[in-house]
């Protein structure tokens, strides 16, 4: 996993609540057995006029010009600004893979759905929670600025605006550690293999039917 320390990037505003993972990456693309290549079909139904299929040349498809990802000023964006309950619905990690493959490193929203939130950390995509008021304020700032960039400092747990305003955010110590160091958590867990085996031995005595 790519390390996340400090990131500065263009903010893309997606002004909708309850954005679900079906919208982030529609089902037809879930047939892939790979983790890569989902970027061109991120937000597919909102981005293109006609439904796409896996394997087609997405650069030739007709665009919904108004959709944020298609607007010139947001090209190269790497920070997504969203509304409450972002990533609800299906557990598909393809949603996170699509966001990272497109180039997003961070999302800022007032709240996230649990499974999506979890999946993000496993892929170096930092989901930041800021209050609704602050998110609202950033939406307004973007509307009145040509190229609006934010800086994210994970070590300090800060979001820094172009005018130098600083918003702090919370993150679990363990998740922060993994993100900063780009750690694979399977390797970390396997350090405790003896604890897992000891648990199994004890549990087999209490509830043997769980191991049949």
């Amino acid at each position, binding site marked *: 996993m790519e390390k996340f320390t400090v990131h500065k990037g263009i903010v893309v505003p997606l*002004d*909708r*609540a*309850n954005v*679900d993972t*079906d*919208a982030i990456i*529609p*089902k*037809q693309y*879930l*047939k*892939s*057995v*790979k*983790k890569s290549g989902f970027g061109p079909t991120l937000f597919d*139904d909102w981005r293109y006029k006609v*439904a796409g299929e*896996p*394997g087609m040349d997405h650069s030739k498809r007709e665009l919904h010009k108004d959709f944020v990802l298609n607007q010139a000023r947001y090209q190269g964006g790497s920070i997504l600004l969203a*509304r*409450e*309950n972002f990533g*609800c*619905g*299906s*557990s*598909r*990690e393809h949603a*996170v893979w699509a966001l990272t493959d497109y180039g997003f490193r961070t999302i800022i929203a007032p*709240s*996230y*759905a*649990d*499974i999506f939130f*979890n*999946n993000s950390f*496993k*892929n170096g995509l930092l989901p930041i929670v800021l209050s609704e008021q602050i998110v609202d304020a950033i939406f307004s700032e973007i509307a009145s600025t040509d190229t609006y960039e934010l800086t994210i400092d994970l070590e300090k747990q800060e979001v820094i605006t172009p005018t130098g305003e600083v918003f702090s955010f919370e993150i*679990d*110590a*363990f998740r922060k550690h993994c993100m900063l160091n780009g750690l694979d*958590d*399977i390797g970390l*867990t*396997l350090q*405790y*293999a003896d*604890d*897992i085996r000891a*648990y*199994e031995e004890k*549990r087999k005595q*209490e*509830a*043997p*039917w*769980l*191991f*049949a």
Partner: protein
Amino acid sequence: MAAKTLYDKLWDAHVVREEEDGTALLYIDRHLVHEVTSPQAFEGLRLAGRSLWRANSILAVPDHNVPTTKQHRGNGTAGIDDPVAKVQVETLNKNCEDFNVKEFLMDDIRQGIVHVIGPEQGATLPGMTVVCGDSHTSTHGAFGALAHGIGTSEVEHVMATQCLIQSKMKNMLISVDGKVQAGVTAKDIVLAIIGEIGTAGGTGYAIEFAGEAIRDLSIEGRMTVCNMAIEAGARAGMIAVDQTTIDYIKGRPFAPTGETWDKAVEAWQDLVSDDDAEFDLVVRLDAAKIEPQVTWGTSPEMVLPISATIPNPADETDAVKSNGIQAALEYMGLKAGEAIDNINVDKVFIGSCTNSRIEDIREAAKIAQGNKVAKNIKLAMVVPGSGLVKHQAEEEGLDKIFIDAGFEWREPGCSMCLAMNADRLEPGERCASTSNRNFEGRQGQGGRTHLVSPAMAAAAAIHGHFIDIRTLAKEA
């Protein structure tokens, strides 16, 4: 000892180790696997040279991509027309072979939707932790299990370590008090709950469903309720163990037998919240006030009783919500003030991990019996949740009732719940669906989904529009 909730008990029994910040390694007893969210996990194991920690904890089945028409089944993956989907199912088969995982292949009568076959086989037991790379894993909480969906990275993590890295969720109790009216089903109860707490109301919580109306449900009804906990934002929904739970499990292929069964049943008696257990949040609903429900928008929380009219965005003071309602009405092609029972539908889908079990099919068949699908309905389909459900329904002659009424009787799979296979809506088509998500494009790009119970879906097929099934009961 402090009083514990059911969730507290399940959590405590599975903690392998806990860090100071509350992050824990949680042991997983049952891992269900399907073709869509597992290939990258198996590939990850291969690339890292890792093996499965405990292969016999895994049960695999292809369900999302499989065709549901008879002519496409019976010859393994050869019947899958879509080459990309075919590769995915074949990849699952190969992975299960390579890693020695038990899999029900496409032609096995035990094949079906992963959340239908787990319980059907007795592979889901009370007191278990159950995970699957699928958000509707909450279904299995109906057995007093801690069950939730995970992403593919976590699928790989469980495969390699038998554990998940977790932080404990908060406890929510949803009590549905009193008895429901005739014609009101488990689906209506859970839709009413989602309408009450909202689609993010359960975020960060494990929900325990309780109260007389929940206890009165069969285990299948309880599965329907827990299945949709995720649509209220809660990864896990659960219901305490009682005699209904134990009677359902007894004698199923994966269930314990003999002395082990007796010991298990004794242990399962404790899988209830203690009387004085404290919940972080308690929500109460009056069962008698719940009517048959119909969703009208593009989020499961956009739901109303059949007697209601479509809401007006102008009545909503919160700007984000008002915009949400406006966008939903435009997508759904509906007008504020329209009566829900006046909405015509084009297609009807009875199936999915929410509502494809034998009782669901019986409920729908009761409405269909002796009737004909209305002329404006382009397609009405019944997709049983498993080969065994299909077989049981055919033994009872339910397939004939549907076919005589003009429904299509299909082979098991996820089908038009998420339209990964050929079963889907065309742009603008409106569907009465017993599935779980009415998101934009969920059942096909531009498709318009209304979530309802199996009986309400069957009634919509017969009448061509939504209709209050309680009035049908009175006429009969």
